[in-house]
């Protein structure tokens, strides 16, 4: 990519960037390596053996114990997390895709006002909404249900903005016009022409909202009190609290570590596999 961009890729000239990147790799990787290594250790080894090297290989025992502890609580949390983040991401992406397209390619009363407001919405800190939303949802008796986590997560002003920019750049008006001349319905145009054309933007919005919900802690912490409804983030912290408070009597640190490892693997895999899509989506946003 950069080759032929006027730079001479000689050794000397790439030494500095490579040095920077080498240090970076160490910094970003060591904590992750620690989790991988630590997840293979039993509780006593976790305390006694060298932190960054393997002791007796105990990973499968840890995983077994992880899913048995508290009557299989971890399994429930994992399913909850996948459910909450999957539904939220699909919903938020669908809403953002339709709205972004509507704003980019239609005219209707109040559009300008709404677009200006959209930019303001991006600036509203999400956590400032959590406590008020909790109070409202408790009025309608939705707190402590899965909807209390999913419904507020559907809000993605930034997603709508990104899609709007993307459609404006890469979905030609002429194409939509000619589909209309062929008497295609608006929904069909959206579904069969527009959606395939904005796939990178959709994957980007989907992945980022998926991560946002998968990783969310504040919202479920506020909304949920039934441990069966917890996502991984809240569940793991309750275990960690127990481990801290009853240090020595209950052996939970190894489970917290193994549980942490299993909680991050799916997302990292998703990002690596879908790299091609989300990177072009992010780049499209960046080029605007």
């Amino acid at each position, binding site marked *: 990519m950069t080759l032929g961009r006027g730079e001479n890729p000689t050794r000397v000239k790439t030494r500095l960037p490579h040095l920077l990147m080498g240090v970076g790799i160490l910094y970003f990787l060591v*904590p992750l390596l620690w989790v991988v290594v630590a997840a293979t250790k039993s509780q006593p080894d976790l305390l006694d053996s060298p932190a960054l090297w393997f002791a007796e290989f105990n990973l499968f025992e840890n995983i077994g114990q992880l899913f048995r502890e508290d009557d299989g609580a971890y399994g429930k949390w994992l399913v909850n997390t996948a459910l909450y983040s999957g539904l939220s991401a699909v919903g938020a992406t669908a809403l953002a895709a339709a709205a972004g397209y509507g704003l980019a390619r239609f005219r*209707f009363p109040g559009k300008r006002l709404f677009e200006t407001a959209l930019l303001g919405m991006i600036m509203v800190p*999400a956590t*400032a909404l959590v406590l008020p939303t909790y109070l409202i949802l408790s009025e309608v008796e939705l707190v402590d249900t899965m909807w209390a986590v999913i419904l507020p997560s559907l809000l993605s002003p930034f997603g709508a903005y990104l899609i709007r920019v993307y459609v404006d750049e890469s979905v030609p008006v002429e194409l939509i016009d000619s589909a*209309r001349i062929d008497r295609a319905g608006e929904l069909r145009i959206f579904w069969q022409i527009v959606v395939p054309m904005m796939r990178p933007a959709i994957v*980007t919005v989907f992945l980022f909202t998926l991560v946002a919900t998968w990783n969310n802690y504040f919202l479920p912490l506020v909304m949920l009190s039934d441990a069966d409804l917890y996502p991984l983030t809240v569940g793991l912290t309750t275990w960690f609290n127990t481990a801290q408070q009853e240090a020595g009597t209950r052996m939970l640190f190894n489970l917290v570590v193994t549980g942490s490892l299993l909680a991050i693997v799916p997302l990292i895999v998703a990002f690596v596999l879908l790299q091609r899509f989300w990177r072009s989506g992010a780049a499209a946003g*960046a080029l605007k």
Partner: protein
Amino acid sequence: MRSTPITAPEADDPPPLAPVESRARRRSRRVTAHPVAGTLFVLPFFLVVVAFLVVPLGYAFWLSLSSKSLALGTRFSGLDNYVRAFTDPLLLDGLLRVVLFGLVQIPIMLGIALAGALALDAVTTKFAIAFRLIAFMPYAVPAVVGALMWGFLYSRTFGPFADLPTLVGGDPIDFFSVSLLLVSLGNIVTWAWTGYNMIILYSALQGVPREMYEAAVIDGATPVQIALRVKVPAIKQAISLAAIFTVIGTMQFFTEPQIMARFAPQISAGYTPNLYAYNQAFAYSDFHYSAALSFALGFLVFVVAYAFVFVNNRRRGKRA
């Protein structure tokens, strides 16, 4: 904590956060779309905005205008909660702490992200691809897990770092001590978010047209000079946007300090404003005051962010 992807507009485009109008609009005059189709596409999103943004903010504001006490019950108290908030030493302490934290951590993080992005833009080896992937990985790690992980790494019982100085006869490092706590927290946030910002800046760099620095290459400028004098100014807009989104995230600082409180008991109920609002609601059941805190914090962040974008756009407007 921070969760929205960032667009990184390029230098010569129209203001980044301004509605994209002109061309598309002129052309769309020819379109004979069904008159309500546009409204219907936007409507579902609009409803979610109303239900989970407008109504909560309105409700928070309404709640914040009254107070509850044992003697008097719930009664209208006007702006008393806000007066209380801005004279509450605990809140002001937290606010000051977060501002100081941001003033140090944000430039460091964005500086590293920018250096990384420039390095990625300069070389295209396999090593660079590996670096890009690895640096981005922490973004996919939940803040809770990141904080727990670093908590373990910092601790003397689990981690490799605290005892390092003892190898040369020094004292072990206490990462949870009052003097180091903010640094320890800053490191967690830097670890988690540098790669994400780096990718954003890298994407912006990829969009800088090669012609922009061809002349500099011919004049014999070194790669470092080109990076600092041509490339960095060319993506100024992307850098400011990354900065503003980071500021928004930092002002909401919650998860990391809340988790770290298990390792570091001196993290108080009011360590950050957001932690304070949470504790007012759930530890002290003062929902009216908590609503005022949430609303005030949200409003403050909103005003700072909007002012920043506004000033930024004005400056760009003048230059053009």
